[in-house]
């Protein structure tokens, strides 16, 4: 039923990707990664700080079996900076994947489609498996796919907003038309939204805040994993046809009504 999520030359059993930001501690984050079953885990970049040299994030993640790191380009304001961040991320992690994100406006964090496209073209030439975070725009999705991206990652709603699938109708179009995996990224709040993405044919979801900011991140990670699996199964099981009217599930025989004896 499921041959796994194919990205670049790799295949992954889990269709839940996890971001590592906003967790209260590294231990909490690692427990959530474990509970989620995620195999692709995003990390950001920052300047080395001697005072914080003990909070190495790559070490503990790399020691977990089956984890592939996906460095992101967060903080990049344009294509040039994003390409540089991607090269730095590859130097540090050794991973061929990059989550390309260019969102210059801190108020809405909407991805810049033009800079994202330009960076994607360069990074594909540099042999990255490019996973571009993008507005839920089917035209851009096609262009990024044609540029050679390994997947497209349209947003459900604004980063960290928990507004769910605000872009639902456009996501449906992107999923219908895409020839590369569609990973819905950003804005998800509840596992039911992740299940909905999978039911409508999405290939994966990337979740961070919904898990990191939950009261119990480990339990929420487990819940998202179950939802993604349930949604994927439902997609293959085939939903029943919708009917305008009620269709009885029990025989409507009249033996309870009337009658003498």
């Amino acid at each position, binding site marked *: 039923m499921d041959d796994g999520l194919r990205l670049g030359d790799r295949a992954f059993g889990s269709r839940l990707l996890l*971001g*590592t*930001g*906003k*967790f209260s501690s*590294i231990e909490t*984050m690692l427990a959530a990664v474990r509970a989620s079953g995620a195999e692709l885990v*995003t*990390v*950001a*970049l*920052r*300047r*080395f*700080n*001697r005072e914080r*040299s003990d909070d*190495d*994030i*790559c*070490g503990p993640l790399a020691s977990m079996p089956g984890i592939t*790191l996906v*460095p*992101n380009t*967060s903080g990049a304001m344009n294509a040039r900076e994003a390409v*540089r961040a991607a*090269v*730095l*991320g590859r*130097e*540090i*992690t050794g991973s061929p994947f990059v989550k390309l994100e260019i969102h210059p406006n801190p108020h809405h964090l909407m991805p810049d489609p033009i800079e994202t496209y330009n960076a994607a073209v360069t990074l594909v030439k540099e042999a990255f498996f490019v996973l571009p975070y993008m507005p839920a725009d089917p035209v851009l999705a096609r262009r990024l796919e044609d540029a050679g991206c390994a997947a497209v990652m349209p947003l459900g709603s604004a*980063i*960290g907003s928990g507004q769910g699938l605000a872009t639902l109708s456009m996501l449906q179009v992107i999923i219908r038309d895409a020839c590369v995996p569609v990973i819905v990224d*950003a804005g998800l709040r509840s596992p039911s939204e992740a299940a909905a993405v999978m039911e409508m044919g999405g290939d994966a979801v*990337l979740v*961070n*805040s919904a898990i990191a900011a939950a009261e119990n991140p480990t339990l929420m990670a487990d819940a998202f994993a179950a939802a993604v699996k349930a949604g994927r199964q439902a997609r293959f099981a085939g939903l029943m046809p919708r009917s305008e009217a009620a269709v009885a599930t029990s025989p409507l025989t009249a033996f309870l009504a009337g009658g003498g004896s």
Partner: protein
Amino acid sequence: MNLVVNGATHPHKGQGAIAELLEELHAAPATVAVMINGEVVRRSRWESIRLAEGDELEIIVAAAGG
């Protein structure tokens, strides 16, 4: 020699090798990427580099992030 490391002046006491500088900073070489004067210097080229007075370096590590 004086270098600028992550925006701050750093008095380097060695011969200008990247490995020496990382040791001074207590940075684990396997966990960092290095930029010199705005250019990423790949790990494979570290040994061939000699830092010079006033060079501006960025030492970058991975951090938590979505």
